């Protein structure tokens, strides 16, 4: 297969061209009068670029070589290099994949016919977002990187505020914009300091910088803040839930599936610059990662808004990836090759997996919103009957994201677990093994969150009129979901192949390490897992056959569910989303925070009353908001300086003159 791919005309050129095609995909729509034509053209172009780009990326990945080009630009920041090494090409794969799937999905989800005013801009910025990310991973000049980065962030913002008539969307947009801009400020510092270290704005070669000077520490902090804010690592996650919840679903898929990974890419890339980084860096990443995972999934359990739940679980998954990266860094620092390899493999593979199942779920949520007309899980239920196919695909995503065999989520977490257990025999850092139970807890909570999501949306009986008459989604929407579901299954069943996909990226990330481990051994392990998965499926099939045989020979009839003895039971007495997670919330109270407003009931026959509970954004509400209010107050005080009294303005002038005079002499 590789040889066939390498037979292509220079894959790097192909990949970059594909990226550019994606970028221009939205432009025809601006000039075309007929609604929808532009959208269709965009979808076709994006699909084409994916068909070109993904094979090219694979070829580059397995070629294990780095293709470098010099872009001739008119800006005074040194030469602008583009380069595609295995790490870049690894990240290119999900970018092209999700972009294509999303633009296809948009045909059904955001038809131009119904959204005349917004469709054009949406399609345009969607293309820009995709291509900016694709170019980002190839950029090797700090300033160029920064420019592409900002373009990415801004286009994401414009996608996010597509429905800016609603207050919630505007709020989410502003929070996102402020968060991302603050991150960018950190990146300004980062690239300036890198330039100060290496003498030019070209990104330093791998392992060329020493981590000893204090500047390196500042660089590390800036990296963590700047890229962490984009990736949504705690405590920089504040923008993430509302942004993902309020964007159109295929945009959420793009943001969560790929854009967050760009933050991780930044961290990966920056860490490659340094040789033997201090243990502290890995430790910080690990702690931040595992706490993001734990808190993220804890928040997810409490959510009532379907897309917010998915967004919180993105925080969790980013946390898992960051943990893997941190562990790998600690492995590098302590010259513990297997730890480094397993951590990195787990992290990279989880990046790939998350870019399969998270888009699947977000696209699914789009389908659900179409059917039920709401994001509030407590108002849904029983959708599986109306839309069996979507329900099945969504189920695959939910199981996969819980990290349950035989799907892909398990594979990456398995590698991480194995890395932790491996520490037990390691000479140092034995305590890393304690991450395993924490990760297990994360897994358990994930099961709670996603059984909640899946059941309250698809199972039981409808809890509102909106959800009563769902309709199956069209092929344009089901096809991308099916593709992702298939990929989840494939990686789950053939994990050893997925590992081969990741290996080159690891090699480019830490050349000296990856030679020290024998990767084949881990491949074999994953082979056993795929064997067990097959056995599991066969067993299940056997049981099913047996049961059918039994049912065939017996009487089967159907009746309504027993109403638990209620005289007039309504669908409202079902366990809804909130009631399902209520127990978990009460047990994990403190990690999960909820604001519950209970009604005052009095008298023998209290009148109708309602009880409302919603999860709270702890960091945003208790940390960020107070800071802003304080700043507002103090600024308001200082603003009195502009009081309109001109003779006092005159005094300003002469006082300035006087002070400067004193200073001068």
């Amino acid at each position, binding site marked *: 297969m590789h040889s066939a791919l390498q037979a292509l005309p220079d894959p790097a050129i192909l990949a970059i061209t594909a990226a550019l095609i994606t970028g221009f995909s939205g432009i025809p729509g601006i000039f075309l009068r007929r609604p929808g034509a532009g959208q269709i053209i965009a979808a076709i172009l994006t699909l084409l670029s994916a068909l070109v780009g993904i094979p090219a990326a694979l070829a580059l990945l397995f070629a294990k070589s780095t293709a470098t080009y010099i872009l001739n630009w008119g800006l005074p920041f040194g030469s602008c290099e583009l380069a595609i090494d295995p790490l870049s090409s690894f990240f290119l794969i999900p970018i092209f994949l999700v972009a294509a799937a999303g633009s296809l999905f948009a045909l059904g989800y955001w038809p131009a016919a119904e959204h005349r005013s917004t469709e054009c801009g949406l399609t345009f910025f969607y293309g820009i977002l995709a291509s900016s990310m694709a170019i980002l991973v190839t950029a090797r000049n700090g300033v160029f990187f920064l420019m592409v980065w900002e373009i990415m962030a801004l286009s994401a913002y414009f996608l996010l505020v597509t429905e800016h008539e609603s207050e919630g969307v505007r709020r989410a947009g502003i929070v996102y914009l402020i968060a991302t801009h603050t991150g960018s400020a950190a990146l300004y510092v980062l690239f300036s300091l890198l330039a100060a270290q290496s003498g030019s704005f070209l990104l330093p070669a791998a392992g060329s910088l020493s981590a000893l000077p204090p500047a390196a520490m500042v660089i590390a902090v800036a990296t963590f803040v700047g890229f962490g804010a984009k990736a949504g690592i705690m405590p920089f996650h504040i923008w993430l839930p509302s942004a993902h919840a309020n964007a159109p679903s295929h945009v959420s898929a793009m943001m969560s599936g790929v854009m967050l990974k760009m933050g991780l890419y930044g961290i990966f890339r920056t860490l490659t610059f340094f040789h033997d980084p201090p243990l502290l860096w890995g430790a910080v990443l690990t702690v931040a990662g595992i706490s993001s995972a734990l808190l993220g999934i804890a928040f997810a359990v409490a959510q009532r808004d379907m897309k917010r739940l998915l967004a919180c679980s993105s925080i969790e998954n980013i946390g898992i990836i960051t943990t893997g990266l941190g562990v790998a860094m600690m492995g590098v620092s302590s010259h513990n090759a297997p730890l480094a390899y397993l951590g990195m493999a787990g992290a990279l593979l989880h990046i790939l997996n998350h870019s399969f199942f998270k888009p699947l779920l977000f696209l699914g949520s789009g389908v659900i919103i179409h059917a039920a007309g709401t994001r509030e899980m407590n108002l849904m239920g029983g959708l599986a009957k109306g839309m069996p196919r979507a329900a099945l695909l969504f189920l695959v995503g939910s199981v996969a994201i819980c990290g349950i065999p035989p799907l892909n989520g398990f594979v990456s977490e398995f590698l991480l677990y194995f890395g932790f257990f491996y520490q037990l025999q390691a000479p140092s850092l034995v305590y890393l093994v304690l991450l395993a139970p924490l990760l297990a807890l994360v897994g358990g909570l994930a099961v709670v969150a996603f059984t909640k999501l899946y059941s309250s949306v698809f199972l039981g009986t409808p809890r509102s009129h909106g959800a009563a008459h769902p309709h199956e989604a069209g092929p344009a929407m089901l096809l991308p979901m099916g593709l992702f579901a298939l990929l989840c299954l494939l990686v789950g069943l053939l994990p050893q192949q997925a590992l081969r996909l990741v290996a080159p990226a690891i090699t480019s990330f830490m050349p000296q390490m990856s030679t020290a481990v024998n990767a084949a051994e881990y491949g074999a392990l994953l082979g056993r897992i795929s064997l067990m998965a097959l056995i599991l499926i066969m067993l299940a099939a056997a049981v099913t056959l047996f049961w059918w045989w039994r049912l065939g020979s017996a009487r089967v009839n159907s009746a309504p569910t027993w109403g638990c003895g209620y005289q007039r039971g309504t669908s409202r007495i079902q366990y809804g989303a909130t009631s399902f997670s209520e127990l978990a919330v009460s047990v994990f109270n403190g990690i999960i925070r909820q604001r519950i407003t209970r009604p005052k009931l009095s008298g023998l026959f209290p009148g109708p009353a309602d009880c409302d509970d919603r999860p709270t954004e702890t960091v945003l509400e208790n940390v960020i908001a107070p800071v802003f209010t304080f700043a507002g107050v103090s600024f308001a005080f200082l603003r009195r300086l502009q009081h*309109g009294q001109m*003779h006092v303005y005159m005094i300003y002038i002469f006082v300035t003159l006087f002070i400067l005079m004193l200073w001068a002499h």
Partner: protein
Amino acid sequence: MITIADQFLVLVLLINFVVLGTSRLIFSIRAVAVQGVILGILPALIHPFSWHLVGIISMILITKGVVIPLLLNRAVRSAEIKREVEPFLGYVPTLLLGAVFTALSFGFAGKLPMLAEHQNYMFVPASIATLMTGFLILTTRRKAISQVLGYLILENGIFIFGLLLAEAMPIMVEAGALLDLLVGTFVMGIVINHISREFSSLDTSRLTSLKEE
């Protein structure tokens, strides 16, 4: 000749105090006009005769002595105001401050690295003192007219210093500068008239609607 110039400069300083002390606008306008005339004469005393000197002097006399006072008078008439009532800072404190500033400026001028032949004349101290007076009036008076007067006195202070460097300042530039001052004050006069029409007063403490709250 220059000794006579010094006498004139003393006059200038006195006029400063007059303007600081009086509340009657018409009177202070006249005082400033006189100051302008004196400044007009001064170049004749310190520079050798030349035609462009004549040009300059005549121009100064016309602008500072005639045109600007007329303008301001018109404004005062149209606004029907006689005197500067309750300034931000009372007259006595202003006078005292003026005295202090004058003293300081003499002290300060002594320290400056002067040219030997300028050493023992009071051009520099007089100019600084006049500057300070202009600043005082600008910052303490309420009426727009008074502020214009303050600006004029400030300009006069600058002008006194300019006398020291006639050979460095070519005639063209000198003329340009003067022209600017004229036009500037002219525009100020117009603006003042508009203000008096808009607010039916020249009280600048009314002009505080543009601010941050």
